[in-house]
């Protein structure tokens, strides 16, 4: 099967006073039709920027490097007209805070039908009928009444369901969900997770689920990418990643969860990740995690460790890749496989560090 979305070595930089700084250094990821893919990382890791790049919602002046291919279209060559069609049409977004993403002064019906009429050219009455179906699809009781209501008349969970309904309105192929459950209670979150699972099955919808909570991804996402300082640190099918993490950062993230520690008898000690997180622009030369890593060796700098396969993958899709010189298998395996990326040459690394000096 061909991936519906392919990002290859994507980097994003934003302008600052007299210079530019990176918010994303090098991210490659693939999404296949009908699958839920998790992107996990701390704040500042660039996980939200990855999602925004797919909808061209980056801040003004942002520059994107690398390739982004969606459904055979090169997104980097798209003009504003093309983006208008794609955004909300083929790729939709569900954001963290539905209170902010819904218009407070328009009824739910107005916001939903607006979308349907613009993207699909529906007439008023058909749009209304379709809006009702959409609300039913996201399990909102009494959709007729909901259409006439304003966002503030709903609870947080219901509002998030409404913004999901709006995202689904034009029949997108891919939904970028940026921390869609972070602002919700656990009981409500569970409902939204079920909804995403059902929608992805029923409509053959691909979902990129961005979160900092690996527990959420554990049951929902088929594959997970761990992002740190604008780079992919590790990726694998979620069960393999949580069961046999290779990268020290992935291990540290898993150990920082209260419920993993408490699974045994008695109260365990939560282990914080030492040091401060770095961002793509403040990362040192070499492995960005090196400054906080317990397993650091000399080889961690100054070259950025490439993503290499951990084992002979069953398929291109389900391979387990890790960007770590300590925990990756012998290099011969890494080199024999195409597409795993050769070590980045040092000239680029030095250019990067010079750019940092200017900042």
């Amino acid at each position, binding site marked *: 099967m061909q991936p519906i979305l392919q990002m290859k070595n994507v980097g994003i930089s934003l302008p600052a006073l007299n210079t530019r700084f990176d918010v994303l250094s090098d991210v490659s990821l693939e999404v296949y039709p009908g699958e839920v893919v998790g992107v996990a990382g701390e704040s500042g890791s660039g996980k939200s920027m990855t999602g925004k790049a797919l909808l061209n919602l980056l801040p003004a002046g942002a520059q994107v490097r690398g390739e982004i291919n969606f459904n055979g279209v090169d997104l980097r060559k798209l003009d504003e007209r093309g983006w208008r069609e794609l955004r909300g049409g083929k790729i939709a977004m569900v954001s963290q805070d539905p209170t902010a993403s819904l218009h407070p002064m328009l009824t739910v019906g107005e916001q939903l039908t607006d979308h349907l009429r613009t993207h699909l050219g529906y007439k008023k009455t058909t749009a209304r009928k379709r809006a009702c179906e959409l609300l039913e699809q996201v399990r909102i009781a009494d959709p007729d009444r909901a259409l006439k209501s304003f966002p503030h008349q709903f609870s947080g969970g219901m509002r998030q369901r409404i913004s999901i309904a709006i995202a689904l309105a034009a029949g997108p192929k891919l939904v970028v969900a940026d921390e869609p459950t972070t602002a919700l209670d656990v009981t409500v979150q569970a*409902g939204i997770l079920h909804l995403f*699972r059902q929608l992805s099955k029923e409509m053959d919808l691909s979902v990129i689920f961005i979160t*900092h909570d690996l527990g959420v991804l554990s049951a929902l996402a088929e594959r997970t990418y761990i992002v740190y300082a604008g780079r992919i640190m590790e990726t694998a099918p979620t069960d393999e990643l949580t069961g046999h993490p290779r990268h020290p950062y992935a291990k540290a993230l898993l150990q920082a969860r*209260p419920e993993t520690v408490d699974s045994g008898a008695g109260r365990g000690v939560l282990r914080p990740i030492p040091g401060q*997180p770095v961002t793509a622009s403040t990362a040192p030369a070499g492995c960005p995690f090196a400054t906080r890593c317990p397993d650091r060796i000399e080889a961690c700098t100054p070259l950025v460790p490439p993503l290499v396969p951990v084992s002979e993958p069953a398929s291109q899709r389900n391979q387990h890749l890790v960007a770590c010189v300590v925990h990756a298998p012998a290099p011969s395996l890494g080199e024999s496989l195409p597409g795993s990326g050769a070590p980045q040459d040092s000239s680029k690394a030095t250019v990067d560090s010079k750019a940092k000096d200017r900042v």
Partner: protein
Amino acid sequence: MTLLEISDVVVEYRGANKKKVAAVNGVSLSVEPGQIVGLVGESGCGKSSLARVASGLIKPSAGTVKLKGHTVSPLGWRRRDDAQLGLQMVFQNPYSSLNPRRRIGDQLMDGVPASMPSRRRRDHALEQLERVGMHPEAATRFPHQFSGGQLQRIAIARALVTDPSVIIADEPVTALDASGQVQVVNTLLNLVKELNVGMLFISHDLALVHHIADVTAVMYLGKIVETAKTEALWQRPGHPYTSALMDAIPRVQQNAKLPKPLKGEIPDPANVPKGCPFRSRCPHAFEKCVEAPPLMPHGQGKAACWLIQGAGIPVRAG
């Protein structure tokens, strides 16, 4: 003597049609020295209102809050009683609870008790910074120079400079990400042991409360529905709401199943169903639930559910 005693507290707000809405409806809780009491519940259950009453920020409509036997009265323009100075609060968002335009040191110095001799004051503030694992140099810096986890530790240090006997922490880690949460949780755990202070730890995250609290109280619609030693509560929850909260926690595990959602929505506090407030969402609701259950003994704790009386009705499937 109990350190902090909250008894039968009611907090009422005036609703849209001038009708009174009870956000907290008769809650009793006590905190002992060196004890962490965890309070969990969904948003809108009244836990933050309770925190505001407990810390003396607002006046309860009924009931009392006592600190070491002295009644806590809300803050006004007058100087607070010395007896009440031992009550400190740590807020949810350190970015807004610390003043961005003042140096950390100055903000800490504000809280140093007036009785302390002037040459000791600065050292006392710096000691608290060290106690939360921050370098004393932090005192010369501004809040924007720190990460969320560090800021929250500074906010804790600020609570500590007054030598408090009780700390009320209202969702202190919710605004932080994984590694920041761990820093703050570890700091709080050490402090309680070291200084023998009592703590009311409010959170919506049951997994976190399980990790940190000695005693857990579960709140629903302004009422405590279950309270017990944390381990006992975790192993044998007495109230279906407690089990529902536990089932909804997403866990990292192999072949994980999606967490179980709780059906329905939290009812409008202005329109609480008669009888057991959880009746409308409870999978085990039966005839008796039209009558409101009181808190009844369940193991070593208490739960407000008729099911525990009947025993033999499985509260938690699987």
